[in-house]
């Protein structure tokens, strides 16, 4: 662990700090030191010769990045300190620019469309098949990918969720093959896929599939600190080009707490990743079986696999559909927290997701299962939620950048039909856009926003905090 070792060495060297940070190994901020611990503050230092420099690594950071690349089977790996968001944005900014097109599934993370606001490229959405019963977006079918590529010869890249928040994988190997034949770059959002690189019998990882770039949330299943991530490069990408893009927006004071957590977690994964994720899979499998035995809940996994829009499933995920109870996922999510002191990852309109990891214990899994049983006993409604969660095909009129920076006017939500939206509307979690800048709104969009608001989802994005109004593009008014 080159980075951890360099930090240890620095600490033992009792270096006299006349550089930033000003807390000087914590001594200048006793309250913070007391709260976070002296060891933690003693390695919160700035880049210096023995510790290398994240913007231009030549020694220990470079070594640590090379070790990470080896562990993940990548040609190069960048340590990222701005969240997986920064990795997603860097891979998009490194691959498409203004006037070019990028093919995306609609259920991308908001960071993807944010990147398009920055670079000016136009999204071409692939309809992710919807599972009507579950109300979730699935993966991209290979046929749909082919058709879209043929219809959009100007597209320079395609982005693949590997997997989605719910654990669903597209056929990334086939998609990569087709994309490469047509000269498109393949970018993978692996925010939820770190374990694919280490577990046994896991869905295929992006690097193994031959993808060009992959954004990996090490802090999710990989065990590193929040906000640390990896950007992996395949063999066909020049890492120096990517580094230039990363340095456009990355801090010049990369946190050594985050960097060392990446280094240490990489080693843990390489040594014990396989057994760790076997355990996680066992936990999730057991919970699924027990939750399905309760009745009315549907904890899904491999049974969704259809060889197409659900090519594979990540069985470490515990996604549970709640509509059989007559309750929205978000309602079950709230009940678990408010009544049973159990915090899960998210609840959407029809599903909940409990994040299972190596940190879990049998007794906590038992608590979750039992609490779900109790919620059914006490809160079940006879009327099944009659929610038609149809896929709303986005109509992209202008690029997100043009809409975002264009002249706009604020309208009450109900009057927005037919107008081009100039801002994001996100349903959080899972942080996937209902509307992105540049899209024409219809009655379906508006009804969905109203429904999500009623059910207590947190809607974010617009200037108007309660989403009673939206900014729309003014550009069409005279035309």
């Amino acid at each position, binding site marked *: 662990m080159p980075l951890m070792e360099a930090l240890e060495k620095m600490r033992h060297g009792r270096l006299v700090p006349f550089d930033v940070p000003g807390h000087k190994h914590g001594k200048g901020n006793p309250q913070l030191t007391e709260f976070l611990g002296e060891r933690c503050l003693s390695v919160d230092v700035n880049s210096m010769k023995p510790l290398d420099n994240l913007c231009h690594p030549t020694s220990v950071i470079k070594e640590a990045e090379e070790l990470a690349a080896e562990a993940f089977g990548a040609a190069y790996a960048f340590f990222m300190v701005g969240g997986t968001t920064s990795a997603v944005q860097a891979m998009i900014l490194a691959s498409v620019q203004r006037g070019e097109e990028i093919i995306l599934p609609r259920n991308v993370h908001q960071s993807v469309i944010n990147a398009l606001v920055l670079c000016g490229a136009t999204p071409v959405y692939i309809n992710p098949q919807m599972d009507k019963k579950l109300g979730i977006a699935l993966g991209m079918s290979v046929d749909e990918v082919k058709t879209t590529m043929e219809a959009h010869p100007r597209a320079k890249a395609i982005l693949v969720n590997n997997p989605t928040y719910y654990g669903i994988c597209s056929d990334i190997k086939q998609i990569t093959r087709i994309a490469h034949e047509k000269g498109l770059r393949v970018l993978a959002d692996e925010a939820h896929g770190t374990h694919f690189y280490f577990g046994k019998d896991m869905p295929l990882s992006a690097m193994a599939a031959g993808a060009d770039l992959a954004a990996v949330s090490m802090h999710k299943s990989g065990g590193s600190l929040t906000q640390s991530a990896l950007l992996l490069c395949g063999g066909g990408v020049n890492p120096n080009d990517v580094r230039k893009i990363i340095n456009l927006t990355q801090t010049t004071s990369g946190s050594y707490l985050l960097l060392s957590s990446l280094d240490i977690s990489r080693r843990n994964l390489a040594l014990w990743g396989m057994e760790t994720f076997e355990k996680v899979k066992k936990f999730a499998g057991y919970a699924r079986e027990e939750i399905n035995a309760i009745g009315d809940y549907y904890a899904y996994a491999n049974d969704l696999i259809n060889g197409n829009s659900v090519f594979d499933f990540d069985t470490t995920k515990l996604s549970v559909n709640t509509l059989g109870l007559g309750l929205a996922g978000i309602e079950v999510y709230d009940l678990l927290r408010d009544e049973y002191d159990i915090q899960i990852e998210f609840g959407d309109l029809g599903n909940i997701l409990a994040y299972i990891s190596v940190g879990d214990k049998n007794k906590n899994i*038992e*608590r979750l299962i*039992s609490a779900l049983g*109790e919620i059914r*006993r*006490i809160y079940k409604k006879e009327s099944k939620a009659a929610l038609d969660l149809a896929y709303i095909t986005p109509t992209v009129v202008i690029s997100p950048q043009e809409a975002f920076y264009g002249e706009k006017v604020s309208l009450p939500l109900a009057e927005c039909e037919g107008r081009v939206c100039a801002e994001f509307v996100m349903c959080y979690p899972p942080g996937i856009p209902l509307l992105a800048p540049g899209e024409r709104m219809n009655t379906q969009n508006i009804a969905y926003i109203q429904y999500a608001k009623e059910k207590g989802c947190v809607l974010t994005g617009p200037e108007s905090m309660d989403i009673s109004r939206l900014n729309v593009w003014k550009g069409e008014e005279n035309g």
Partner: protein
Amino acid sequence: MDDLWYSEYHTPNVKFSLKVSTQLHHEVSEYQKISVFDSPEFGRFLTLDGIMMLTQRDEFIYHEMMTHPAMAVNPEAKKVLVIGAGDGGVLRELGKYSGIEKIDVVEIDERVVGVCKEFLPQTACGFDDPRVALHFQDGLKFVRHTEQTYDLIIVDSTDPFGPGEVLFTKEFYGNCYRALSEKGILINQHESPFYQEDAKAMKSAHKRISHVFPISFVYQAHIPTYPSGHWLFGLASKTLYPLEDTGAEKWNALGIKTKYYNTELHHGAFALPTYVKELLSDE
């Protein structure tokens, strides 16, 4: 001469110590550290993760108070579920009732039973009763799965920090409610009201039970080796009240032999000190 003492921190600032004559056993099971000591004053005693569970000298108080108050409220109880109770003390007390037909015991740690059978026959004799069926399982999982209906559920748990934690949750109490008959009663050890940390656990347990059961009361006993010596128990039920529905004559007619419990004490036990009443009503 050896000067061996067993000590337990009742709070970070209060230490409780017993002179130890010899350590009889120590092992680390899948769930916890199990030790048995012998002492001049309290006889043999069992500790789990360094916390006193029972001593030969005063265990009768705890085990009688976990059992007889509920049996006096509903002497007709036939099917009983006991969760925890790896030492067998509650089973020994239940064994005194000829009307009981079945006693299911769910203990997560098989080794606790093994150690008690070897070193603490005074309580482990409870396992010899032919009505007792032992299940080595997670207590929450057992009640969640059970299709049985019980007249009495006794939760003889460790503290709510450690393996016993799940037995203090709302989901556990809710599953108990589901598994109880119309006249069913839930008894649980309720920690102590005296020291702040214990009192917090006591309050939250009571609050959760009150949300699940329409009737829920707290009663007390005096147990020398537990923190502060003042210990609480919870009695929750669907329809029966602990005082109004107690048939003292009926219970006395059973001729059950006890050392601590009697039907006058039953009434007194539910009369709580003012500060405890305030703690319980303060939500």
